[in-house]
């Protein structure tokens, strides 16, 4: 039997459910874990049902259930998002968010002339951050961490 996409998902779901159950079972003071353990058991049951039904339904087109992750396209985005979360409290929410806005737009822009490629994201990023500052800092009095800059 081949381990196709949907079956792989069902196996992954079963492993996740078992791990969650074990996390609750092995903890001290089991009384506190009653509800999450009931949920984990329900998840195991549902994962087993999904696995069995995927195995029985031979010939079902797998592509309808599982999509492909375009890792090559999304790798820069994931790195940028990771860096964004890391730098937010260090450089300041507003500075880091402006940098994220500009970098994300530049990285995912279709190729074109250098000047128009840079100027528009910077200008729009500044305007957008002014609106965000007005809404959150001025109107709603949200004190975002300032970090090194702002």
């Amino acid at each position, binding site marked *: 039997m081949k381990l196709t996409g949907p079956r792989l998902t069902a196996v992954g779901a079963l492993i996740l459910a078992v791990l969650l159950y074990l996390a609750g079972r092995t903890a001290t003071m089991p009384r506190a874990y009653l509800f999450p353990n009931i949920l984990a058991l329900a998840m195991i049951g*549902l994962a087993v*049902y999904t696995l069995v039904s995927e195995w029985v339904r031979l010939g079902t087109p797998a592509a309808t259930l*599982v999509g492909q992750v375009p890792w090559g396209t*999304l790798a820069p985005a994931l790195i940028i*998002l990771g860096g964004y*979360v890391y730098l937010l409290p260090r450089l300041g*929410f507003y500075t880091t968010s402006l940098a994220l806005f500009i970098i*994300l737009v530049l990285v995912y822009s279709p190729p074109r002339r250098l000047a128009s490629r840079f100027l528009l994201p910077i200008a729009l990023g500044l305007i957008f951050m002014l609106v965000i500052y007005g809404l959150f800092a001025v109107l709603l009095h*949200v004190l975002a*961490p300032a970090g090194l800059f702002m």
Partner: protein
Amino acid sequence: MPFLEYFPHLFTWWNMALLIGGTIGGLILGATPGLSPTMSVALLIPFTFSMQPASGLILLGAVYTATVAGGAVSAILINIPGAPANIATVFDGHRMARNGRATEALHYCFIASFVGGVVGVLLLIFFTPVLAEFALKFGPSELFWVAILGITVIGSLGAQSTARGLFAGAFGAWLSTIGYNPVLGVPRFVFVPQLAGGINIIAALIGLFAIPEVLSLLETARDPTAIETLGMERRSVWSSFGGCLRRVRALSIGTVVGCVVGLIPGAGGQISGLVAYDQARKLSPYSDNFGKGEPAGVIASESANNAMVGPSLVPLLTLSVPGSPTAAVLLGGLLIQGLFPGPQLFTQHAEVAWVFIDSLLVAQLLMLVFGLYISGLSRVVTRIPKRYMAAAVTVLAVFGTYSVENSFADVTVMMALGVGMYLFQKAGFSAAPMVLGIILGPIAERNFLQGRMIAQSGNGTLAYFFTGSLNLILIGLCLISIGYSIYGELRSLRRRKQQRQQQESSP
């Protein structure tokens, strides 16, 4: 009738300015991901300190009404519900927008919100004493079954199979148990310090909907041939009124479900839209169209979440028991003004109470007018290139999450959940059941544990949870809901099989 007697008191320049300002501000705040009705009302309470009690409550009531409806704008246009109450609007609202019917979806949203909202407020006006008694009948066992009823709708919410939907819902409920046990106070599953406070519902909502959407936008953002803009067609408001009235079944289901769920203290209006959507889908002859851009889905969801606004105030104004999280914040607003909810509120402070209730009725009308107006302005949002939209949504998601509790841990959790959800979606799971699990998990666990403690001092757990007319009705509804879900899936499978056989037999 007192509500008519005090109606003229509402029409002062100052009160009308507050109503209009509150409605416009509420629509904008509601459309901003992360700024839920509860948070918007809480943020505005300090502004009401210096106002007359009636004026302060008018502002808070207008904001409450408008934010609930405003949350649908971002749900329809950018696939991110403004608040948990708007989750069900995403399923068909955003699909309608993708099919070139964004204006129609926004029109239906505000018209249905208006109808549901007016019926809900009329219920508050005419049936408050009777309904207050009904609301009091909900103890831990009944609330547990309400949460289970909510969980039974999970299976049909956007997932590609009932089992996957239920798995995602159970996983969401499991995620909600991270943090401290509500009864014993023991920390559970706190693997990293960021999880010590548990998973915030708003952070989860934003992460599970916004970040996968950002990554999906970026998948094709570089490709100039993969341009997909939302269609904002030109459409007369009157034809939308006609379309809404033609779907009177969905409108009625949404309104009735919203009114009933709004009355139940603690259940919150967060699930009214989802329950109404599920019931409208089950009772519709076009149930297969739900999730593909069916207007009845938007109408049921939006009429329900605004219909719960009035009834959620019934237990608050008469018994000091809030029917929704926002009503709980409103209770704070009342107490700050020196007003103590209860039967004496309608005798000692009759003018304040009735002017406030009357203002909710007028706020529904203003919400309709301004909502339909901003439907036209939303055209701007649909023309934003994907990379700009992705960048803007990411920044909004971070600020929206942070502003809930000024917690950076919430931002980290939001981002981690979002990236995880993107991968989960690729494996055929849906965000909606998981969010519903995170919302209902604490309600189910708290009431289950409280119920067990009460039962141990009485006739035992089984007798406590399985006897009593309200318990039996709720259990019956749960069984009907599960049975209908299974029947619907089997019917759908049979139909697909027949279609496949027809395709194979045709040359």
